């Protein structure tokens, strides 16, 4: 039924093959970097292992001490860091793509802030334990996201309105947080503050299982929505013209993005800026206007893994920083740079 004559497609196919090659090499390089960082995280510390020792331990033939240090202390921590990195990165990438705004990331528009406020409320006021606190954080993120969506709704949701309302909500949530902390007992407040910075220390396998399960369910959804996402990048009108119901797709993908951010925040606290920077960095590395979801996820994992490793070893002695401080230190300058350059060109990443 096609009305078009076929034309010689060799140059196009060639160009696409080259793009594919570049995509694959970027993914491979990121994977390799991740493996290196992972090896460092597992091997280096107060008790350092050589590479052969590490491999031996990972295959289950280490000494009792090595097993304990690597498999019980360092591996859960690394695994959780990688998983939440992926979750945050994909959440940010979805938010930014669906709302077509580089500032639309769960940590900027108050979704992770909502999780924080709910978590601190449950810790300080209700005196909940860690599992209940995680659930509260999850609920907080969902409630805030729904509130933003409803407030931004005017017969449809437009990116910039969503972001503006989200930023407003983020400030409100900050206010609530400040109030809760100021009312709290000093010791309790200290615990809450640590949670608020975000840290993967004390990772438990049940946290890891929850994050892994959520990713296992949502990654295929994202993969299937990939064409719709690409259509949505071209604006609501063109998306509709291509056969994609913009509003419905946006809502579905926002739900996925919120679930990812909520799960990750519930597990480790609001690791600042990972969601915000991962996808733009991946796109810049690739030099593409495409989605770059896989590279974005890998960049996210890399950021959290590096941040956690740095946080553990930056300060001499037994002092350990929460990973959120490191991600914040990477993310804040990027935000400034983005604002500075987007002013020049009149558009964002």
């Amino acid at each position, binding site marked *: 039924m096609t009305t078009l004559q076929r034309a010689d497609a060799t140059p*196009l196919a060639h160009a696409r093959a080259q793009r594919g090659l570049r995509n694959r090499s970027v993914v491979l390089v990121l994977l390799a970097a991740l493996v290196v960082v992972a090896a460092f995280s597992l091997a280096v510390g107060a008790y350092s292992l050589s590479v052969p020792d590490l491999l031996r331990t990972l295959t289950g033939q280490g000494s009792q001490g090595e097993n304990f240090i690597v498999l019980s202390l360092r591996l859960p921590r690394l695994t959780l860091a990688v998983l939440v990195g992926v979750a945050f990165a994909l959440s940010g990438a979805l938010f930014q793509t669906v709302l077509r705004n580089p500032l639309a990331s769960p940590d900027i528009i108050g979704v992770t802030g909502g999780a924080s406020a709910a978590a601190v409320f449950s810790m300080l006021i209700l005196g909940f334990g860690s599992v209940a606190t995680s659930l509260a954080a999850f609920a907080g993120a969902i409630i805030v996201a729904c509130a933003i969506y409803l407030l931004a709704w005017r*017969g449809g949701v437009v990116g910039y309105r969503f972001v503006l309302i989200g930023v407003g909500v983020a400030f409100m949530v900050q206010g609530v947080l400040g109030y809760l902390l100021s009312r709290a007992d000093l010791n309790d407040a200290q615990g809450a503050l640590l949670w608020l910075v975000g840290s993967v220390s004390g990772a438990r396998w049940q946290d890891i299982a929850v994050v892994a399960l959520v990713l296992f369910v949502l990654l295929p959804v994202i993969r299937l929505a990939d064409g719709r996402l690409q259509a949505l990048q*071209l604006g609501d009108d063109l998306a509709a*013209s291509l056969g994609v119901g913009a509003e419905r797709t946006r809502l579905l993908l926002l739900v996925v993005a919120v679930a990812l951010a909520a799960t990750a925040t519930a597990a480790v606290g609001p690791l600042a800026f990972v969601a915000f920077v991962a996808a733009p960095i991946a796109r810049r590395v690739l030099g593409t206007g495409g989605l770059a979801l896989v590279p974005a996820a890998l960049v996210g994992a890399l950021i959290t893994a590096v941040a956690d490793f740095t946080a553990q070893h930056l300060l001499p002695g037994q002092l350990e920083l929460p990973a959120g401080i490191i991600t914040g230190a990477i993310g804040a300058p990027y935000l400034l740079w983005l604002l500075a350059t987007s002013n020049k060109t009149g558009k964002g990443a």
Partner: protein
Amino acid sequence: MTHQLRAEGITLGYDHTPIIDGLDFEVIPGAITVIVGANASGKSTLLKGLSRLIKPDAGQVTLGGRNIAALPGKKVATVVGLLPQQPIAPDGITVADLVGRGRYPHQGWFRQWSSTDDEIVAAAMAATNTEQLAARHLEDLSGGQRQRVWIAMALAQDPEILLLDEPTTFLDVTHQIEVLDLLLERNRQHGTTVVMVLHDLNLAARYADHLVVMRAGKIIATGAPADTLTAEIVRSAFDLEARIVPDPVCGAPMVVPIGRFHGRAADPDPAPADPAPATRSRLHQQV
């Protein structure tokens, strides 16, 4: 197989303020239909309604006799394509990537890219003379090049009926002609039905097989340009006095607007508030 695209008594509007109220409209298969009318007369709204970008508050749009709202979106997209007035592209997207996205409705769940897709994208780029731009970033192109790329994307979608909302706006006259020639060629050689909104009445008259004149959400005239574009119709559609002369290039009607300061010599009864002759000639020079 040709599909009939038809609006049956549709009421369209935003926030329940109707812009178009109970309108009937039928797209003539294989023809170039041009919709003209003053700003806010409902031209774009009609296009959006036809391509189910806005849902009618009443009435229905049918494609091949079936309500378009009940058909699967991707299926409709293989028959009807719309190029909006100001399409958006993500930063850093290359021309080839963008044009390729037009293939979306033809692809399955996992979007396997086939050699047919490649060939059709290549053909769309050849038709719009954009092959040389394939690896360039869209934001680095000139306005005329960009518009050709967007049309290439619409052609890659390979619709039977192509709707375009002001495809020549923001283009200089050379590029306007280039784009319209491209669409005419597409129509004549491939039988693609074209429906577009244009602001330039003379270009509309020249390129249209079928002209639709709208005012305040209603169609006030429709037919071949020679029958449709009369001084009375222009007056009632645009509140503008104009002389209609034959276009010296192709004989289509050409609208020559009169305005407040010109053509009064031909007017036997000038208005009493007319400026003094000295002022008039000065105005004349300015205008």
